[in-house]
Structures are given as structure tokens and as C-alpha cells.
């Protein structure tokens, strides 16, 4: 007996609902896992974290592609991977030996201005790649480089020779006040009350500062911060 058209539509609607709910669950699970792993930018991931990030996305997609696969088949591997990653991170923190085993150690590719060819070939890093990375750091003249270090996450850090580094205020004998860390006071119209409390400031002080700058309420302000030297940055919301 052929199924009724109405029933077919009902079945399709159920499938869509199942896909929708599964996708939301998987998304929240991956978000929680990546958040708990504690890294925000891909460039900061260590090798094992990169592997985990790639695996998690593939594994979690499985039950979304095939509704016949139980949702647990996607979620359990995600939980296991991020749990293992957390434990490996903790162990590598406690044991330098374990850290060296998992992530290796930084390699010095240039020292005292000389390119260390053996280190380059050990890391399968060509001269062209070295020059490319140095250019990315704003270095075009190799004579200005004191040290170039290839970190365990693949980034290259460069230490310039002292005479090639920009002078600092202390080297020039110039007195400069400490700017301090800017702290947000209003963000998209919302007052950051915790930050106000942290700085020992009151709502009435805030309203006074706003009035001085031509604003009557925090809701009119897009962003406002206060730095350690007492400087205020304020930008109002654009008129609708």
C-alpha cells in the first residue's frame, strides 16, 4: 500500500526536525569542547590540538550525514578526543620530558646572524621558506637578524641585532608614563558593572563623564574605555 502524500510530508518534516536537533546538539558539544580546550586562534594550536580539531569536525559530522548512525557515535569520540587532549596538555605541563616527546622543542634556525643549515634540513625547512617567513616578520635583510627560532607550533620568531632594533624610550632617556591596561566601561550600550567595580568607580561618575561629552545615557554609547593614565576613549552609537 502506497503511503499517503500527507504522511510523506509528515515523515520529511520529522527528518528535518531530527537533522535540526542533531546539528544543534553536535554544534553545542563541539563548541563546549573547543572552549574547554582553551585555545581561540588556529595559529596557536600545538600539533596534537590541531589533530584533535580536525578529527572532531569530521567525527561530529558523521551522524549529521547519516541519520541511521546513532548520535552517540559522533559525540562519544568528540568527548574522548577533547578529554585526552586536556590530559595530554596537563601532563606536558607537569613533565618537560613528556612535552618534548609530544610537541618536540623549538629549533634555532639562525644564530648570531648565521643560517644553521643542519637545523633547516632537520626541520625540512627550505631557505626559500625561511626567507618567506622572515619577510612576513618584516625582515628583508638577513644581516639584521641575530636569532631565528622555529617554535613547536610552526611559527618563526625573530630576534633582531641590538643595533637594528628600534630604540626604546628608556634608551633615549625619555620619561613616559605607564599607559596601563584599558578597561571597557560601556560595550554596545551595556554598562560593564564588574569593570566599574574593579576600578572603584560609580555609576554616577560614569553618567557625569557621559554628560561632559554630550551623552545622557549609556545606551547612546557604542564603546567607552578608561586606561591606566585616566584617558577615556568614547564612541557613540550611529543614529538610526
Amino acid at each position, binding site marked *: 500500500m502506497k503511503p499517503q502524500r500527507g504522511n510523506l510530508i509528515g515523515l520529511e518534516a520529522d527528518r528535518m526536525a531530527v537533522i535540526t536537533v542533531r546539528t544543534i546538539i553536535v554544534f553545542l558539544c563541539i563548541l563546549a569542547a573547543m572552549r*574547554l580546550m582553551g585555545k581561540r586562534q588556529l595559529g596557536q594550536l600545538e600539533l596534537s590540538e590541531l589533530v584533535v580539531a580536525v578529527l572532531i569536525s569530521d567525527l561530529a559530522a558523521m551522524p549529521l550525514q547519516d541519520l541511521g548512525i*546513532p548520535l552517540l557515535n559522533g559525540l562519544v569520540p568528540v568527548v574522548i578526543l*577533547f*578529554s585526552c587532549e586536556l590530559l595530554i596538555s596537563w601532563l606536558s605541563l607537569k613533565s618537560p620530558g613528556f612535552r618534548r616527546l609530544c610537541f618536540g622543542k623549538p629549533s634555532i634556525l639562525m644564530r648570531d646572524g648565521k643560517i644553521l643549515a643542519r637545523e633547516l634540513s632537520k626541520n625540512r625547512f627550505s631557505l626559500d621558506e625561511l626567507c618567506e617567513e622572515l619577510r612576513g616578520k618584516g625582515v628583508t635583510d638577513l644581516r639584521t637578524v641575530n636569532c631565528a627560532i622555529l617554535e613547536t607550533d610552526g611559527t618563526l620568531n625573530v630576534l633582531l641585532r641590538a643595533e637594528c632594533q628600534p630604540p626604546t624610550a628608556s634608551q633615549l632617556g625619555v620619561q613616559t608614563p605607564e599607559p596601563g591596561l584599558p578597561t571597557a566601561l560601556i560595550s554596545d550600550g551595556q554598562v560593564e558593572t564588574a569593570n566599574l567595580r574593579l576600578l572603584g568607580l560609580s555609576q554616577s561618575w560614569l553618567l557625569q563623564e557621559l554628560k561632559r561629552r554630550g551623552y545622557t545615557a549609556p545606551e547612546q554609547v557604542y564603546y567607552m574605555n578608561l586606561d591606566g593614565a585616566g584617558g577615556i576613549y568614547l564612541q557613540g552609537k550611529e543614529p538610526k
Partner: protein
Amino acid sequence: MKKELAAAALLLAIFAADLWNGRHLEALLARMDAGADTALTAAETEHWQEACAEAVSLAGCWQSEADYARVFLRQSDIDAVAETLSALRGAAVGQDYPACLSAVLSLHTRLGSIRDTEKLSLGSVF
């Protein structure tokens, strides 16, 4: 430290769930296999009412584990077993021994396939 303890606890919980799942599934499959053999024996000796009752009981047993099956087993496996149980019931009602035999053998094969897939062994891992 809290995160790491939570991670270790999660891993332990998953391992414990694996152990529980393995035992639960083995017990279920063993019950189903035994029930299928009982139904076949009844059909062989032409005790058709008993065969029908056993077939219905088997279907009820599988149905009672529907929630567990939906969470832990593939839908294709669940459907295959349900289809075979239906065939067994039909054969018992129709008092058709060859069809009963075929259905029971098919059920043993499908349950064995689930067992092989879900059991931790070198074969299932690789």
C-alpha cells in the same frame, strides 16, 4: 586541575558505559538467540501455538529494548532484526516450518553481525 579531573572522570565514565553496554547487549542478543531456537524447536515439533507465542515474545523483547537500540545501534541493524522477527511471526502463524527455519537462521545471522560489530576485538577495531 578541575578540567583535567573532569576529563579523567569523563573518560572513566565512557569506559564504564562501554563495559555496561557490552554486557547488556550480549545478554539481549543471547536472550534473542535462545528465544529464536525455542520458537524453531516448537515449530519443528508442530507446536504452532507455542511457536507463535515465542515469536510474539521475541518481538516484545526487542520492542522493549527499542530506546536502548535507538541510542546504541545502527538503524539499519534495528530494522533488519525487526523485519526478521516479523517474518518469523508470519511463518509461525502460517504454520510454515521452512519459512520458520529461514527466519530463525536469518535472525541468528543478523544478531551475530550486531555482536561482531559491537564487540571489542581485533577484527572490529581494524
